[in-house]
């Protein structure tokens, strides 16, 4: 029997630890299940997995050091859950030794790098823009206020949403983005944004602070809609604020509202006592696809060969391991999975249609 180590470098302490832990739990759960089932069969050999996690505190340079450490321990597959770290280590994937970089970030730049060893899990966020904007503009009006977070990712989002909003004929107010990580009290930022009397607010960052921004806005009498960046999850926000506050928001559909996620949701909740989000779900799926790809490739230590089998593996993934419907992996290394967005009305989620999908 053989034990294959899987690497993970993400924030396990500091402000982003919450996020890093969710990702870690997803991978861990997949590995646990695989091992309990006796592992996978690679060229007649039983292979089980072990997750080797290193903390990088969300710092790209730490990610680089961690990745070097993991690869020099003979690890061929490394999960990284933040755009900065991913972009930093992408050039390393093809240097000696090669490794498969599992990227958990919806940043399109990651795909633009055309890196042959990247495997990107979440849908690109640019998919959300058109439906979010048209839904909210129709429902509330043409003026958008901006209170997003100022992380790298958040700023990209803000720019993209601004552009889309204008494209569809709306007006955008001043950017009142605040750093969700260092701001003690959001109400003054919200007060400022609301002074422009917007119909819709763009918000988003980690779930909890995002919920607090919603709270501040509602308390100050804002009756309009919210466009919620994909980083924030409705299912986590509604533990912080009354569901009624979320009415009129558009964002990513909660994982447990997806059709067919019941098994995963239940098992995850039992194992981790946390809310299952797409962080956990997508990484869970990603790990399973990799295990399958190893099986198909007949190797655990040739990352190129494993990468070549990802598409086939995704298609062959058993039903019970599929959280979101999976149609394959693009040649560029991007997961081609179902993604659903929703608007909240009267405390209920209703799904939004996506016309054109970027892959």
């Amino acid at each position, binding site marked *: 029997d053989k034990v294959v180590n899987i690497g993970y470098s993400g924030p396990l302490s500091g402000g982003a630890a919450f996020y890093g832990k969710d990702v870690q739990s997803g991978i861990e759960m997949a590995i646990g299940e695989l091992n309990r089932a006796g592992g996978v069969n690679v060229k007649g050999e039983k292979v089980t997995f072990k997750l080797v996690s290193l903390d990088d505190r969300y710092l790209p340079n730490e990610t680089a050091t961690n990745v070097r450490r993991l690869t020099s321990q003979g690890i061929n597959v490394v999960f990284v859950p933040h755009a900065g770290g991913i972009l930093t280590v992408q050039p390393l994937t093809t240097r000696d030794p090669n490794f498969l970089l599992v990227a958990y970030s919806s940043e399109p730049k990651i795909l633009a790098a055309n890196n042959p060893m990247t495997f990107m899990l979440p849908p690109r966020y640019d998919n959300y823009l058109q439906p979010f904007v048209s839904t909210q503009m129709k429902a509330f009006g043409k003026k958008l206020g901006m209170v997003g977070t100022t992380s790298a990712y958040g700023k990209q989002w803000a720019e993209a949403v601004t552009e889309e909003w204008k494209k569809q004929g709306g007006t955008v107010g001043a950017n009142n983005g*605040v750093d969700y990580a260092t701001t003690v009290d959001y109400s003054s930022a919200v007060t400022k944004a609301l002074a422009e009397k917007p119909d819709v607010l763009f918000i988003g960052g980690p779930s909890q602070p995002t919920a607090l921004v919603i709270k501040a806005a509602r308390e100050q009498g804002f009756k309009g809609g919210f466009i919620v960046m994909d980083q924030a999850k409705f299912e986590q926000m509604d533990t912080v604020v009354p569901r009624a506050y979320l009415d009129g928001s558009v964002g990513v559909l909660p994982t447990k509202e997806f059709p067919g996620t019941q098994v995963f949701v239940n098992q995850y909740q039992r194992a981790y006592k946390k809310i299952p989000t797409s962080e956990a779900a997508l990484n869970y799926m990603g790990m399973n696809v990799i295990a399958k790809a190893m099986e198909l490739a007949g190797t655990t230590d040739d990352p190129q060969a494993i990468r070549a089998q990802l598409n086939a593996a995704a298609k062959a993934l058993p039903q019970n391991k599929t959280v979101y419907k999976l149609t394959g992996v693009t040649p560029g290394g991007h997961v081609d999975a179902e993604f659903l967005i929703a608007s909240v009305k009267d405390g209920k989620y209703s799904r939004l249609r996506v016309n054109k999908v970027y892959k």
Partner: protein
Amino acid sequence: MTLFLQQLFNALALGGVYALVALGLTLVYGVMRVPNFAHGGLYMLGAYFTYAILTGLGVGYVPALLLAAVGVAVLAAVLERLVFYPLRNAPHVHAMIAAIGVLFFLEAAVQLIWGPDFKQIAEPVPGILNAGGVIITWQRLLVILASFLVMLGLNFFLKRTLTGATIEAMSQNREGARLVGINVNRVGMLTFAISGALAAAAAALIAPIISVAPSMGEVMNLKVFAIIILGGMGSVPGAIVGAFLLAFAEVFGGFYINLDFADVIGFAALVFVLAIRPEGLFRRGT
């Protein structure tokens, strides 16, 4: 105008919280000459204690606040005994590094016990007060009132009671304090306990407005250090004035200049003031 008033209340609430946290820090600095970088950790702990007491004991908000304050006070006193007391004659950098070690530990311990996710504390009095278009939540009003009350109480304690005088005496001359019969060890612990209690009270007050997370102390740390330098290290009135200055700079600077730079504005103000008055606003006499 309503907008201005609205922001005024925001700034007052923020300033009140800053002041409570900064007061503890400045007291400890004044008495022990320790730049206590673990102070933000105590603040964070105060929020978690409040959370744990609320969810675990099922008591009301006010008893939870008081219990958390007592809990953190005890812990701070223990810290003084174990870490800072033995370092009282060492160079300041040592105490500073030790304090950072304590901060690391507290953060990691809290994350281990309560997890890395954000916790939410329900507002004891939910809802808002709408006074002619100026909207203020009851919690903010509570923060403002309570922090002013605590500040008044502290001032009375320091200026009007003999125990308070011993704290001031020790901050000015440790040996002299020993010679008149003051038990400086007890005063040292007392000061740490007070600083812990103030930080915890501040955290419990603001916790329902913000979210509680293990790293919440780091940001506060930077701000309160900026505040006490601005006000003059060790100065009590300086800490209060500095706290409100920073809060006003952040809120109104963010409002009238640029929110993106709200944090920079605070520090820029600090650098600016120090460049003009290197000794801080309220210099202690020699």
